[in-house]
């Protein structure tokens, strides 16, 4: 019986160590976080030519500054974090929906509409987008990745450094 307990303890320790290593390997390059404690994360989403362009705030945590990070059409959210998605358009009227969260908004030129999101747990969400009432063949739909804040931080760092 004692033997059994020992074996179980050993397995658990290994898992924890592995887990810790994984955690460290993600966190190591990111000395600072892009998330500001207690403040919502602002993400700018621009519809242009039937694609989304997603912009994240840089180290200052503020959008529309020099260190903004443009992440192509990749929308990734930190789980459990209060996020504000600011929707704009450069041309058409676009619809933007996260059906699992029952959230819908539109993107219109010269106007801003904001969606507040707090996604839990980690995983993938469906993004349903479209040019409203117009062409339906577009790249506006896809997947939103919800990752742990740490993983999200790493991903954004990598993105800033030119990795995908």
């Amino acid at each position: 019986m004692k033997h059994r307990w020992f074996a179980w303890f050993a397995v658990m320790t290994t898992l924890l160590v592995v887990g810790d290593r994984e955690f460290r390997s993600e966190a190591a390059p990111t000395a600072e976080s892009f998330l500001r404690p207690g403040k919502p994360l602002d993400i700018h989403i621009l519809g242009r030519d039937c694609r989304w362009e997603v912009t994240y705030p840089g180290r200052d945590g503020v959008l529309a500054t020099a260190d903004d990070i443009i992440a192509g059409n990749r929308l990734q959210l930190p789980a459990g974090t209060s996020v504000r998605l600011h929707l704009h358009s450069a041309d058409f009227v676009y619809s933007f929906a996260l059906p699992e969260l029952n959230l819908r908004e539109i993107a219109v030129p010269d106007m801003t509409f904001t969606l507040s999101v707090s996604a839990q747990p980690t995983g993938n969400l469906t993004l349903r987008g479209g040019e409203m009432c117009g062409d339906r063949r577009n790249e506006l739909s896809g997947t939103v990745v919800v990752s742990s804040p740490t993983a999200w931080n790493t991903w954004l760092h990598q993105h800033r450094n030119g990795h995908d």
Partner: protein
Amino acid sequence: MTNPLRTTVAIALSVLIAGCSSSTTVTKPSIPAESPTTSSNTATTTSAPLRVLGQVPAFELIDQYGERFDQWRLWGKVWIADFIFTRCTATCPQQTARLADLSRQLGDELKADRLRLVSFTVDPAHDTPAVLEAYGKQHKADEESWSFVTGDRSALWSLCERGFKLPVGEQTENTANPFLHSTQFVLVDQQGQIRGYYDGLLAEDVARLKKDAERIVQELKPVPAALFDAYESLKQRREQQLVQIEKEQVFHQFSFTDRRPESGIRFRNRVVSDASKDYKATHYDHGNGLAVADVDGDGKHDLYFVSQLGGNELWRNLGNGQFENITEKAGVGVPGRIGVTASFADLDNDGDSDLFVTTVRGGNLLFENDGEGVFRLITEAAGVAYSGHSSGVVCFDYNRDGRLDLFVCNVGVYTTDEKAADGSYTAHKDAFASHLKKERNEPSLLYRNEGDLRFVEVSNEVQLRDESWTGDATPIDVNQDGWLDLYVLNMQGHNEYYENIGGQRFEKRSRDVFPKTPWGAMGVKVFDFDNDGQLDLYITDMHSDMSQEIGPEAEHLKAQMIWPESLLQTNGASLWGNALYRRTGPSQFEEVSDRVGAENYWPWGFSVGDLNADGWDDVFIAASMNFPFRYGINSLLLNQRGEKFVAAEFALGVEPRRGNRTTVPWFEVECSGADKDHLDCKDRKGHVSVWSSIGSRSSVMFDLDGDGDLDIVTNDFGSEPIVLISDLAERAAKLNWLTVKLVGTASNRDGLGATVKVTAGTQSYLKVLDGKSGYLSQSVLPLYFGLGDAEQVDALEIIWPSGKTQTANGPVKAGTALEIREE
């Protein structure tokens, strides 16, 4: 010097007439230079698009199974035609063998039903369906994809000579081969256009035909892919409706037939590039209206079709369902402007119908009728010049001075200052959110008629400041005080109701009386749905149907609105579909659309009239959105004793459309050239023809052929109209009706605004003469009362806009066209 063209023609002619015999007695029809030129000069395949060499005319023949075979059987297919006869021992066996060989090479296209083969006989006396069927079997012709066609000889020969421009003749002295015909194979595209001639006896020509046929098949671009399958689902729906309607009591033992080809009407609505090739979600796709009036005083009602491109057309009713184009003589063509709609009304009380036409930034136009159907443009002098995004024009006498005033609905600024190649101003890319941008609002205009065709804009003076995104409005005496109020539709938000305060000013009382209105309102009509002597208000809602794609099973339900409030802006006080406001008293209504089945799918405007003459007004709703959405049916709702509407479009022959059409060619792109970056050129080369679902926009309901029943004419977007002729007069055991034409004296001459109550036995029928004939338009038509079983009318009561009440005692026999002058 030799004329090279003539030489080419001569060479080609010799090819074309090489038939079953070399006899020289053949009839030689005049052959257009283009067809033979092409025949001889396209021997090498080029990337240039195959030219259109002609149009195959309409025909009605029968196939080898004895079934009707007309051009619609081939609509949407590429086909290869030839002319043969089964007794022929000269060229025909070779032709048929070559075609059989070709059918094996093109097997994939044939199986996919993108391509068909059609062999027409020139010897129908011998080539009966049975003979042709045996002939087909003998040559192992696939029975699905290869038709052998016979019929009336003169029809066949005319099709050969005049349609295909190919010679055919008799050579009675040659008993073995008594007919002479061409050996040409003819390539016809999805629209019935001739695209090439190929000698069926020459291997290289047949090889070229194969390549060209494959190329033309590629031109067919169903968008979305399921577009061409729509008819299959319609067949099923038809079966279901035929079963369902038998359970209902409403009279439906009659039907409509689209007799547009026979009517002579050749009008085709043409659309701007924003609504086609440029894929814009913009208000251009709202299309056009059509209006009716007897413009020349001959007692028959004429049709005025409006188009975005190519000018409007006025078609004079010749009687018996025939029309002729009198646009030029009448002077109302207005080419070069982007038309929206039109209204007829007698604006100067001189007994004829004047015409107001709206355009998109091409200036609105007022025409004075000289009484004989010739019109004079008087816009500037009349004081109604305006250039913007105008839509419906409502003629009504708001101040009861006996002159018709004008309410011009302005949609809003949905265009930029840039112009497209077709001359239209291109729309804002975000046009569909324009109602969120105050700077794009465009107030509608109320013009007061000062007499002598002079108008003054009085919107501010009477405090009628409406900035709705409105396409149309209707007069309606909501509070029943005798002054016509105004109900203004909004296609993107709340509808508005303005109460007329003694003809002096208007007071907005929208939400007081109508707490919830359809969000995307398009069509409107005031009528007594349940014959309770109170006028109800029916409104169709198109935009709400755009929020989600639905299947046919949900078409009679309100939309599941998924758009956010940021777009809707009505705080939830909206209906997501049609509304039927049943009047319960002055300024009191209950909304009963779902209870009575007044919902439908993708509606634009609609027309109201007693189609089965049973005394209860029915509704025809023009519907479907065209490109790039699925086909939506036009709705025909029969009114079952004011209890409910019974859907009857399939049962009455309105759907499926003539020839089972659900699609229409929409635009062309050059994928190897100027349009190579176009969305539809992805993975495609050469000339591509993109197709769309077909869709109606507007309609009118009137007795087109003077037989006592109501017919329906539409204006379809980017297509030809439908001319639905009713056979009620022939089918009904007894058809009892009365028409009432009003002639105002103290009131406006057309009597617009008058109500007429007809009593027949114990039943009374109330109608308002407001001119609202269909989507965005106003017409000058008599009121039509179906009387059910009543063979006479016992009394009439007219309440004129002047306030006078006039009564007339009967009996008046059913079948009478009454004209009542205000006294």
